[in-house]
C-alpha cells in the first residue's frame, strides 16, 4: 500500500479539478494563477502557429529520420551486454510510439514482438553507408548475437539528431534510459503489450487485463513463455509509468 494509491489519488484529483472550464478556472484562480492572461497568451501562440507552414514528410525523409533515431539508440546502448538486434528493434518501436512520431512504418507481428522487417534490414546498410556503425553477427560458443560496432563517423548522426529531435530528446532519452538494463525478453513483452493495447483500442474494445493477456497469447505461440501474472504486472507498470498508448487507466 502506498505509491499506487497515491498515484491514483493525484490522477483522480487532476481529473476532478479539470472536470469542466468552471471547476478548472476556480482551481487555477485559487492557486493564484492569472488564467485570463494565459488564455490571451494561448490565443496569440495559436495565431503564430497558424502562420507557420506545415510540411508532410516524404517517405525518404521519414526513412532518414528513423535511421537517425536508430543511430541514437545504437549509440546509447551498443556497449550494453543485453543489447542486440531484438532489443534495438523494440527500443525503436517504443521510442516511435511513446513519443508519438508520425513516420511511414510497416510493423508486423513477429515471434519477438512488433517488427518492421524491411526497415531493420535497410538500417544496417544505411548505418554502414553513413559510416556510423557496422552491424555484424558475432558467434559465441553456443549462440550468436548481432553487435553494433561504432565506426569513425559515429558522431555524424548527431547534428541531424539535434535538428530532428531537439524538441523531443528528453522523451526519447527517457525511453532509452528506462530500458537500459532490461533483458531483451522483458522489453519484448513491453513492446508486445503496447501493440496489443493499441490494437484493442483501435477496435473500440475495452482494455482489460483479460483482453490484453488474450491478445498477447494470440500474438504468437512463443508468447506462452510469459505467464499471465507477469503480463498483468507489466501491463500495470506500463499504465502507471505512462509507457502506455492510451487515454486513462485500463480497467
Amino acid at each position, binding site marked *: *500500500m*502506498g*505509491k*499506487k*494509491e*497515491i*498515484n*491514483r*489519488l*493525484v490522477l*483522480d*484529483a*487532476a*481529473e*476532478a*479539478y*479539470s*472536470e*469542466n*472550464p468552471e*471547476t*478548472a478556472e476556480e482551481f*487555477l484562480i485559487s492557486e493564484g*494563477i492569472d*488564467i485570463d492572461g*494565459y*488564455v490571451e*497568451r*494561448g*490565443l496569440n*501562440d*495559436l495565431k503564430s502557429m*497558424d502562420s507557420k507552414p506545415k510540411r508532410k514528410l516524404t517517405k525518404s525523409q521519414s526513412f532518414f529520420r528513423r535511421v537517425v533515431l536508430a543511430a541514437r539508440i545504437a549509440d546509447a546502448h551498443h556497449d550494453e551486454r543485453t543489447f542486440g538486434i531484438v532489443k534495438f528493434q523494440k527500443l525503436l518501436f517504443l521510442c516511435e510510439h*511513446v*513519443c*508519438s512520431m*508520425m513516420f511511414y512504418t510497416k510493423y508486423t507481428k513477429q515471434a519477438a514482438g512488433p517488427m518492421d522487417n524491411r526497415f531493420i534490414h535497410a538500417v544496417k546498410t544505411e548505418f554502414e553507408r553513413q559510416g556510423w556503425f557496422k552491424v555484424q553477427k558475432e558467434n559465441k560458443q553456443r549462440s550468436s548475437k548481432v553487435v553494433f560496432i561504432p565506426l569513425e563517423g559515429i558522431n555524424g548522426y548527431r547534428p541531424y539528431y539535434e535538428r530532428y529531435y531537439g524538441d523531443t530528446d*528528453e*522523451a526519447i*532519452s*527517457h525511453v532509452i*534510459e*528506462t530500458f537500459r538494463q532490461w533483458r531483451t525478453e*522483458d522489453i519484448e513483452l513491453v513492446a508486445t503489450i503496447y501493440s496489443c493495447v493499441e490494437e484493442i*483500442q*483501435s477496435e*473500440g474494445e475495452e482494455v482489460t487485463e483479460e483482453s490484453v493477456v488474450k491478445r498477447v497469447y494470440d500474438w504468437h505461440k512463443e508468447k506462452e513463455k510469459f505467464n499471465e501474472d*507477469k503480463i498483468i*504486472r*507489466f501491463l*500495470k*507498470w*506500463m499504465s*502507471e*509509468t*505512462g509507457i502506455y498508448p492510451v*487515454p*486513462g*487507466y485500463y*480497467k
Partner: protein
Amino acid sequence: MNSAAPHSFEILSDYDCISNPDVFSGLLKVLMAFAYRLIGDDTVRLERARHELAYDFAMEAIKRHLENPGKFNSERNPDLVKYLKYYIVRQLITNYKGSKGQRQEIAKPDFNPDEVNAVNSYLDRYDIHDSIDLKQTLEDIQSVISDDPPLLELFEFRYLKEYSRGETIIQLGITQGEYNNRIRRLDTVFKRVIKSQT
C-alpha cells in the same frame, strides 16, 4: 460539444472547433488544471514555475493535435478532451519528470512483485523527498477523514478496495459531479497531510 453531460467538458464532434476562442479558452483552462495538479504540489522542486509548466504542457498538447490531427482516432474514443489529457498531457509530464533526475529510480516491473513499481511516474518526485512516507501518508489521510463519512467511504472504495471510478460511483449512489466534489475535498486533505510531513 456535448450538452448531455453538464458536468464534464467534452468535445465529441466538430473537432476543428478548438481554434474557436471560446472553445480554446475552456480547453486551455481544463488542460492547465489537469497538468498543474499532475505536475505535483508545493513539496515538489521544479526548474520552472508550476503554472508556466502547466501552460507549456497544455499548449504543447493542443499544438501536437493541430499538427497531427490524424493521430486522434475518434472511433477509439470520441472525446478529444480525454485524448488530449490522457494521451498527450499525461505523457508529456511523465516524460518530463522521467527525464529530470529520476533515472536512478527506474527499475523493472518485476523488481518487487509485491507492488506496482510506478517508479518513473510523476509521483516519484515524492520518492526523492525521502522525508515522505507514502504508507504513513495514506494512514494520516484516513485518520483525518475518519469523522467525515462521505470522504471515508469514497476513500475506502476507491483506494483501499481499488474500485474503478464507475464502480465507486455506483456503490456510493452518487453523481459524477458529487464524486468529483469529494475527490477535490480529499485532495485538499491529502495536500495538507503532505505539507505537514515536509
